[in-house]
C-alpha cells in the first residue's frame, strides 16, 4: 500500500504520542494522581495507530479496557483524556468514566469498555447503522486474544458475516489474557484462523510492525467500506506492562519482557524512517511537539476542578423533554 510522507510521519507522531501518554500516566498513577485501575497500552502503539490511520472522523471505533492508544489514534485529545484519568470534571466523561470508559461520539469513539469482549457485539450495531443509513462509514472493533474466548466474539463475528456488516475486527494478541497465555487458553494459536468459522477473511500480522498493521487493516477497511463485509485482523504484539499497574507479573520472566523491549514498535519504525531519508531533526521536532502537548495536558488535568457531588447523579437518563 503506497504511503505518502505525511502519513509516514503521522504514524510516527501518533505512536510517540501514545507512548509518552502512557509513560506519563504510569508515572502519575504511581504518584497517586490517577485513581482506580490502569491498563497500559505501552508497547502496542503500532496496532491502534496502523488501523486508525485509515479512518475518517465519522468512522467508528470500539475500544477496550486497555484503550488509551485506540482513542488517541482516533483523534481524542490528550488533555481531555488526561483530565478524565485524573477524575476531573473537565475530562471526557466529566470524571464519571475514567480510564476504562473514555468515549467521544462526536469523533466516532463509542467507548472503551470494562467488560472483555462486550464491544464486539456493539460494533455490529454501529456497522449496521452505517449500512442502514447507506453511508460508507466503517467500525473498527479492537479487542484482545482473551476476548476471542468470550461468547460475544462468536455471536458477533457470525452476525457480522451474516449481515455483511462494515466492521473490521482487530484482535490485539498481546500474549497474555491477564496472566493466561494463548497456549493455555486458546484452542488455536492464531486467533485469525477462527475467521474461517464465520466465512470471513482472517489474517495474522506482526503487530509491532506498524506498516504491517497499516497494510492489513487497510485492505480490511477498504473492503468493509466498499460493502464487502467484515474481516478479522490479528496483530501479534506484546504487553510490556503488567495486566494492570501494580501487577506482580509472577507469570513471566524479566528476560522475556526485556527481549520484547528490543522489538519496540516505535524504535523499529524510527530506524526505518531514518533509513528511508527522514532526518533526525525532523523526528526530533515531532518529539518536541508531542512532549510540549503532553506537558500541557498534564498541567490541564492537574489544575482542572474536581466534579461536584451535586453532579454525581446527572446524566443517568436523557430527559424525555430534551427530545421533541
Amino acid at each position, binding site marked *: 500500500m503506497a504511503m505518502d510522507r505525511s502519513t509516514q510521519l503521522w504514524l510516527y507522531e501518533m505512536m510517540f504520542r501514545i507512548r509518552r501518554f502512557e509513560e506519563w500516566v504510569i508515572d502519575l498513577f504511581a504518584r497517586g494522581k490517577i485513581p482506580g485501575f490502569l491498563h497500559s497500552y505501552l508497547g502496542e502503539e503500532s496496532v491502534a495507530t496502523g488501523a486508525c490511520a485509515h479512518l475518517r472522523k465519522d468512522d467508528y471505533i470500539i475500544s477496550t479496557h486497555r484503550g488509551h492508544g485506540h482513542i488517541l489514534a482516533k483523534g481524542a485529545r490528550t488533555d481531555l483524556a488526561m483530565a478524565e484519568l485524573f477524575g476531573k470534571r473537565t475530562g471526557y466523561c466529566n470524571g464519571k468514566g475514567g480510564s476504562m470508559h473514555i*468515549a467521544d*461520539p*462526536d469523533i466516532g469513539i463509542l467507548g472503551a469498555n470494562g467488560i472483555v469482549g462486550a464491544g464486539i457485539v456493539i460494533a455490529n450495531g454501529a456497522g*449496521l*447503522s*452505517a449500512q442502514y443509513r447507506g453511508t460508507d462509514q466503517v467500525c473498527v472493533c479492537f479487542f484482545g486474544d482473551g476476548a476471542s474466548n468470550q461468547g460475544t466474539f462468536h455471536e458477533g463475528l*457470525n452476525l457480522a458475516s451474516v449481515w455483511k456488516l462494515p466492521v473490521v475486527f482487530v484482535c490485539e494478541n498481546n500474549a497474555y489474557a491477564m496472566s493466561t497465555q494463548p497456549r493455555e487458553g486458546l484452542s488455536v494459536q492464531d486467533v485469525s484462523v477462527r475467521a474461517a468459522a464465520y466465512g470471513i477473511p482472517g489474517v495474522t500480522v506482526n503487530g509491532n510492525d506498524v506498516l504491517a498493521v497499516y497494510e492489513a487493516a487497510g485492505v480490511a477497511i477498504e473492503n468493509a467500506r466498499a460493502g464487502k463485509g467484515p474481516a478479522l485482523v490479528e496483530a501479534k504484539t506484546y504487553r510490556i506492562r503488567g495486566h494492570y499497574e501494580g501487577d506482580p507479573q509472577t507469570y513471566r520472566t524479566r528476560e522475556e519482557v526485556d527481549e520484547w523491549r528490543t522489538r519496540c514498535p516505535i524504535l523499529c519504525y524510527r530506524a526505518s524512517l531514518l533509513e528511508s531519508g527522514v532526518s533526525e531533526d525532523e523526528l526530533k521536532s515531532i518529539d518536541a511537539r508531542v512532549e510540549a502537548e503532553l506537558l500541557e495536558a498534564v498541567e490541564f488535568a492537574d489544575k482542572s476542578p474536581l466534579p461536584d457531588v451535586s453532579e454525581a447523579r446527572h*446524566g*443517568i437518563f436523557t430527559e424525555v423533554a430534551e*427530545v421533541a
Partner: protein
Amino acid sequence: MAEITYREAIKQALREEMQRDERVFLLGEDIGKFGGTNKVTLGLYEEFGARRVRSTPISEAAIIGATVGAAATGLIPVAEIMYNDFITIAMDQMVNQAAKMRYMFGAKLSLPMTVRIPLGGRRSAAAQHSQCLESWFVHVPGLKVVIPSNPYDAKGLVKSAIRDPNPVIVFENKMLYNTKGEVPEEPYLIPLGKAKVVREGTDVTVVATSDMVAFALKAAETLAAEGTSAEVIDPRSLVPLDIEAIVNSVKKTGRLVVAHEACVTGGVGAEIAAQVGYKAFDYLNAPIERVGAKDSPIPFSPVLEKYILPNDGDIVEAVRRTMM
C-alpha cells in the same frame, strides 16, 4: 372504537412508529416472515421489508449488542427477545452496556432503544420459559421498565417506549396476547411513569401488574360481595414508578396489597411496600401484604404450576388479612 387483541395493539404501535420514523427498525429471533414466536410482528416483514424487520441468529448477546450500537449511532432499534428467560444471555449488554453508557460517557450520547420481552407462566412451559424477571432491571439505574396489562395501555406505552431517548424494556405477557380490549385506531401516547386507577375503592389499595391486574379486578368483585371496597391500581411502568399515585390511594384506604406474578422474594412488591411503608406509615391500618409466586422455579405439571403461581384467590385472602 375497535376491539383488538393485546398482540394487535403492540403491532399497531410498532407499525405506527415505523411509519412515522425511518430510523425505527425491528430485530429479533424469527421475527421476519415467521412473525415471531408470539406472532406480534406477523405481517410487518411484508409491509416494511427485510431491512427494517430483521430476523437474527439465536444470539441474544449479539441482538442486544447490535441494538445498543445502533442506538448509539443514530437509529431507533426495537429488539424482541423471545422469552424473558433468554435475556439472561444478554445481561451484560443490558446491565453493563445499555444502562450505563450514557452515564459513564459523561452524558455524551443517548440510547433510544426498546427491548420487548414476554414474561410469565401459566402455559406449562416449565422453569426456563416462564419467569418474571422484571425486578432485576428495576434494580439497575439507567433502564426504564414498562409492563402493560391490557391492549389500550400496550399500544400507548410501546409507542412512548420507542420515542423515549433511553433504554426501555417492555415486559409483555404471554397470557395477555389473545386478550381483547378497545383500542383507538388513531395514534396516542401514554407517558411512562403514570399509574392508572383501574377500579376505585375505599377500604384497601391493590397494586397489581401485568396479568395480575385482571386477577385483582376479579378479586375486587369477590370482595365487593363481602362488603370490602378495593381500589385497584396498575403502575403501568415500574421505572419510572408513580409512587405518588399509590401513596395517595393508601392515604385514602389505609391498607395495601401488592400483587405480581414474579416470586415474592426480591420482587417489585418489596420496593413498593418499602416506599409506602416510609411515605404513608401513619396512614396504614394493617401490615402491607405481598402476593406473588411462591419462591420456586416454575414447575412443568399444570397442577404444580397452578399451585406455585398467584391468582385472584390469593389476592382475596391477602385483602382479608389486612381487614382483620
